[in-house]
């Protein structure tokens, strides 16, 4: 690891000022579960200065305001797991964080770090996109809000500019009649990166007809987004296994339309379809 300057701002304004002043060599440190791995791995200079934001108390916590849940970026996966608000209004996010890493990683790792690191296998992102999350980015020159579905351009690359700090994640509460799920497939039962994942939300009316369907696969598309082609197969119909199988197949086709056939397609093509079907079945 190369030596670096260490800063620990106590407010968002201070952090933004530091980011502006230090420029491209500055790296934000939250839980450090991605940053430290990167710092140790890289021969080239990842960062000449580290801005440790964990002292900024306004960036911690989970709140509700009327129909919205607000999660601050420094909230750890463990805190999300224990949050009654998340359990009630975003159970699929709770399922997703429960499967991240190990207790140690969940105790340190934050939702903000998971989003900003932007790995294709980030487990909080598919649920957050399914929930319609928007994030707020702040810099020394102002702030802006971006839909999470438009935030990522490719793995590890986002539209965030240098100098921008993630300060808030917000999404509408899931209506009480909505059912949601998150499926993760890894190689082992803990400390396992998602080989594939799927977040799903289904809502049906009193007659059982699906009125809303949201499907966001993880670790399969160049960027995360809802697969509307598959969702449209479901809306207006009563759920059946055949329908769910068809939706799974559609997601698989869409995945291949983006990625083409490559060395791992033989495995992913059938399995993403299975995970989509299971995620939808789990929404019952």
């Amino acid at each position: 690891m190369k030596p670096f300057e260490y800063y620990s701002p106590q407010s968002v304004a201070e952090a933004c000022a530091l980011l502006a002043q230090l420029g491209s060599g500055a790296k934000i440190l939250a839980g450090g579960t991605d940053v430290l791995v990167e710092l140790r791995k890289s021969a080239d200079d990842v960062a000449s200065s580290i801005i440790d934001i964990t002292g900024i108390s306004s960036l911690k916590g989970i709140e509700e305001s009327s129909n919205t849940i607000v999660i601050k970026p420094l909230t750890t996966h463990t805190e999300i797991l224990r949050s009654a608000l998340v359990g009630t209004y975003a159970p699929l996010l709770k399922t997703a964080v429960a499967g991240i890493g190990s207790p140690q990683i969940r105790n340190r790792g934050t939702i903000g770090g998971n989003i900003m690191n932007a790995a294709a296998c980030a487990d909080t992102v598919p649920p957050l996109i399914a929930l319609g999350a928007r994030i707020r980015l702040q810099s020394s020159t102002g702030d802006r809000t971006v839909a999470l579905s438009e935030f990522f351009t490719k793995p590890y690359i986002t539209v965030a500019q240098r100098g921008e700090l993630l300060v808030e994640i917000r999404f509408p509460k899931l209506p009480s009649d909505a059912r949601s799920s998150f499926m993760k497939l890894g190689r082992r039962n803990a400390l396992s990166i998602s080989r594939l994942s799927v977040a799903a939300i289904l809502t049906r009316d009193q007659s059982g007809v699906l009125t809303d369907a949201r499907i966001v696969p993880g670790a399969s598309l160049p960027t995360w987004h809802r697969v509307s082609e598959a969702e449209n197969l479901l809306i207006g119909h009563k759920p059946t296994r055949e329908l769910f199988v068809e939706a799974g197949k559609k997601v698989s086709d869409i995945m291949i339309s983006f990625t083409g056939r490559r060395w791992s397609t033989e495995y992913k093509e059938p399995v993403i379809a299975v995970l989509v079907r299971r995620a939808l079945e789990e929404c019952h």
Partner: protein
Amino acid sequence: MYRGASDGEKKRGVGLACSYRGVSLGAEGADAAETIVSVQTDGSVIVSSGVTDMGQGAQTQMSQIAAEVLGISMDRIQFLNTNTSRVADSGPTVASRGTIMGGSAAKNAAEKVRATLLDVGAEMTGVDLNDLDLEDNYLVSTKTHERMASFSELTAACFNKGRPMIGLGWHNSPPTSWHEEEGHGDAYFTFVYGANAAEVEVDTETGKTDVIDFASVHDVGKAINRGMVVGQMCGGVAMGLGYGLLEEFEIEDAIPKQLNFDGYLIPTSMDVPRIKTIIVENEDPMGPFGAKSVGEPTNELAAPAIVNAIANATGRRIYELPANLERVLLGHKLTRQGKRGSEQKNSIDAMVVDSCKIRGGKA
């Protein structure tokens, strides 16, 4: 749930693997060990051996054996780590030979000191040598069960009489033979026997395999320390489970692909089921107090038992390890063709999922 059951994506199967294996080096080469037992004036004891303990517990076994012979409690013993400038080179810690070789040498060494101590005890008490024993930190009369002297009093007397309380124990393994051209011989002086049974649940739609139940049975001769034998058995199974299902080491163009434990996956506690251990005691005249081996035998049976269980569940046999997601689902391994994702930055398909592999670990 079991094979043949039509419904459900998850199928269960059971698999068995059995082995018998030669104990220690056998005809592979020279096979001898030294252990030194040195009793101090205050009744404490120092044991050292050329057999290296790298965490498997050999020092505990050797100390326990010395304590048994000297009739003392383990807290009197201190074990010195191997240093061939003061104890003979006793060969490598391999072939599950620590207890049988180092332990036999420890027994031999302790017996020498014991003979001296009893001799001095007889002089001290006037009781016939053959009616004396060392037991529970005392010199006792086997006839009256009377405690004649404490172990410390005895060692002090021994010191004052100028008698040596150090025993150099040497153990050379019994003769073995091997005829390389004809392919036969008495390759080992004794054998251990073992069996593992695994129950797996295979997700036939994803290839994910969970080991849900496991039993491990081993003939260890005599279990010198039951806790440590169970530890070896459970550790061996956990390691074998990793070998069977997870651990993969690939080399591409002479460069290893797995460079760290984010890519070289070993089982976590969430992947290892409760393991039922059954110790079979089949005492062997060749081993100290009848002990044989327990290290490696515990490790070699898990993977075959697991792949047999997978075959039982799915009807399809896997011939290459690890039995990972792809091999179980597709029957073969998937290999990245062409350049790594990091080298083809502009191709979307390379970026998609290799990204986690490059930075975050194995996807």
